[in-house]
């Protein structure tokens, strides 16, 4: 209905393969960016920033990472929580060991460290496939959490093993610690999320991304076309872990401010991110964002409606929340197994064809 595509033709391959080839989509994207960067920071409350937007962006980055692995490369992983923990602890160690380092470098370095760890745990993927691999990645989840909990060096020998993010800044703006403004945290996460989404888009549309998808769709054919399965899978693990590591880093430093590995990075985290990816849509960058939005907003909305709006007892509301979220997941999978992104795609196709049905 909103699409007017006549005259929107492409004269170069660059134009043809741009991310938003349709003018309407492109404009919409710019509008969303403008709102996110220029409008929201002025209107957003601390609550929205700290309890909604920052977790949404952080989870979106994690979902992006997992989507690269699961959605693009077809390697099912349940070790996300463990990798996020690596990112978080790397950040903590970097922040406390090099107090002068700017946050941007800290976060990215944490990502690289996680990428390295992820690659090691990606090695078995060469021989193990499907659900076996999924269960195998749980080994990473449990082992990493145990290790980070067990070795005091990781938490600077503090009594309880809790890590707390000290105040760090960039260009003189405080980004972490209690005195950081939520808006700053939001913008910092936003820049990283958008930047990483851009990187993810670049990686998935090019040679590397195609080699991942080839491995996912038909590994034998991929190998015969020249794709080295080990390289493809390990690079997917590395890139995915990088994203997840960055997410873990932000999760700890900007969002929570303090963390304890056994609680903050438990197996539930792994499942939650996997949910985001599935609900959002496997193999879709947009889907990672929508999935994260769904999983972050849904409980908050439900809680606000049931407790804030209807005044139900919190425990009853919490139980209902479980029921509703669970039911919604099942309903979503039944209605559109390929996720919200696919729904959006179908909707977009419908709108492009409008008023025709096909």
């Amino acid at each position: 209905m909103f699409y007017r595509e006549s005259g929107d033709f492409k004269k170069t391959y660059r134009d043809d393969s741009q991310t938003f080839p349709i003018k309407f989509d492109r404009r919409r994207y710019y509008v969303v960016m403008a709102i996110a960067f220029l409008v929201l920071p002025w209107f957003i409350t601390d609550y929205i920033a700290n309890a909604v937007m920052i977790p949404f962006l952080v989870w979106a980055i994690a979902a992006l990472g997992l989507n690269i692995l699961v959605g693009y490369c077809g390697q099912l992983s349940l070790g996300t929580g463990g990798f996020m923990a690596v990112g978080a602890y790397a950040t903590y160690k970097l922040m406390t060991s090099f107090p002068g380092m700017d946050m941007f470098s800290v976060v990215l370095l944490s990502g690289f460290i996680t990428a390295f760890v992820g690659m090691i745990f990606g090695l078995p993927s060469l021989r193990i496939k499907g659900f076996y691999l999924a269960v195998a990645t749980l080994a990473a989840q449990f082992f990493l959490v145990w290790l980070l909990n067990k070795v005091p060096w990781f938490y600077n020998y503090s009594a309880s093993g809790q890590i707390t993010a000290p105040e760090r800044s960039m260009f003189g703006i405080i980004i972490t610690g209690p005195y950081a403004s939520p808006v700053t945290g939001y913008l910092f996460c936003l820049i990283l999320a958008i930047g990483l989404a851009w990187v993810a888009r670049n990686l998935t549309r090019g040679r590397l991304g195609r080699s991942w998808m080839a491995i996912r769709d038909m590994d034998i054919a991929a190998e015969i076309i020249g794709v080295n399965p080990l390289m493809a899978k390990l690079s997917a693990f590395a890139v995915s872990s990088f994203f997840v590591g960055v997410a873990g880093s932000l999760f700890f430093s900007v969002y929570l401010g303090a963390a304890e590995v056994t609680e903050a990075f438990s197996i539930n985290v792994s499942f939650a991110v996997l949910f985001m990816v599935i609900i959002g849509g496997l193999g879709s960058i947009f889907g990672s964002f929508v999935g994260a939005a769904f999983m972050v907003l849904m409980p908050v909305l439900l809680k606000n409606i049931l407790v804030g709006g209807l005044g139900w007892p919190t425990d009853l509301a919490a139980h209902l929340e479980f029921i509703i979220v669970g039911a919604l997941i099942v309903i979503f999978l039944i209605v559109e197994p390929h996720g919200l992104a696919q729904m959006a795609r179908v909707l977009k196709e419908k709108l492009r064809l409008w008023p025709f049905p096909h």
Partner: protein
Amino acid sequence: MSADFLYTLEVILNGLMAGVMYSLVALGFVLIFKASGIFNYAQGVMALFAAMTLVGIQTGQIPFAHLINAIFGTEMHHFGWQVPAFLAIILTVGVMVLFAMIVEKYILHHLVNQEPIILFMATIGLAYFMEGFGDIMWGSEIKTMDVGIPSGGSLWLEEYTLGWAAEGERYWGMYIDKLDMVATLVAVILVVSLTLFSQYTKTGRALRAVADDHQAALSVGISLRAIWVIVWSIAGFVALVAGIMWGAKSGVQFSLSLIALKALPVLMLGGFTSIPGAIIGGLIIGVGEKLFEFAIGPMIGGATENWFAYVLALMFLVFRPQGLFGEKIIERV
């Protein structure tokens, strides 16, 4: 015999017993995976739900009391009667069958022919749902499971073995939990009856046919829907058994659902489709993790059991990707 040897033996025996407990949960996974290709993550929650239901029925709890009270402002909790354990078990089995039918009708039926990962996700959704549903139905407080299973170390065994150690060593006799012994016995009975069921009944043979080849089974007129209901009912029954055993051990409460996590490495090791695999895998995992905790654990700070099972299974798979009972895979183009 030296005490160290006896201790090791004790650890191994206890490991085997623990392994049986893991196998009990893994069995439910295998049954469903075999018949429908679904990796049913909700198995753990099913065990919790079954156990809650059993206790609820046994103690005459009013279902949804909390919800009813909240809405109508009433104050009611119990019917005020007690149901004998045996009858309660039968009733619970009925509930689990009903549950299987609902799951088939409202979920599986709509997800036929979907990719495995989608089905997997659906079962996680189901797990969420049941977690909330169980709590609303029966309340979230800790309940005690009492169906008359004995617990505690076997005194007889301890005394009998006390003399095995060399003089002067710190040894207090072999310790084996009676609950574990019962669990082993139950597991054996369960496996034997499942085997008999699948070998000698018509339904059982239909189950096997479906497991071998869905299309073929359909073409000879086996109703897939009926099969699924049966399989989920059996899995529900297995969940109940596991729920009773684990509930008797640690009380019936939220954490019971997490036993699913203990079953996963067992599945990896034994294969998703092999009942003997689930048993042997469980035993290997049980012994492996207990031995590791016993021998290596103290050196590296302990609490290794959570991850060691996974790492063990992982190592095993890396060197033998086809699993314990799988045949060597020849890839075809």
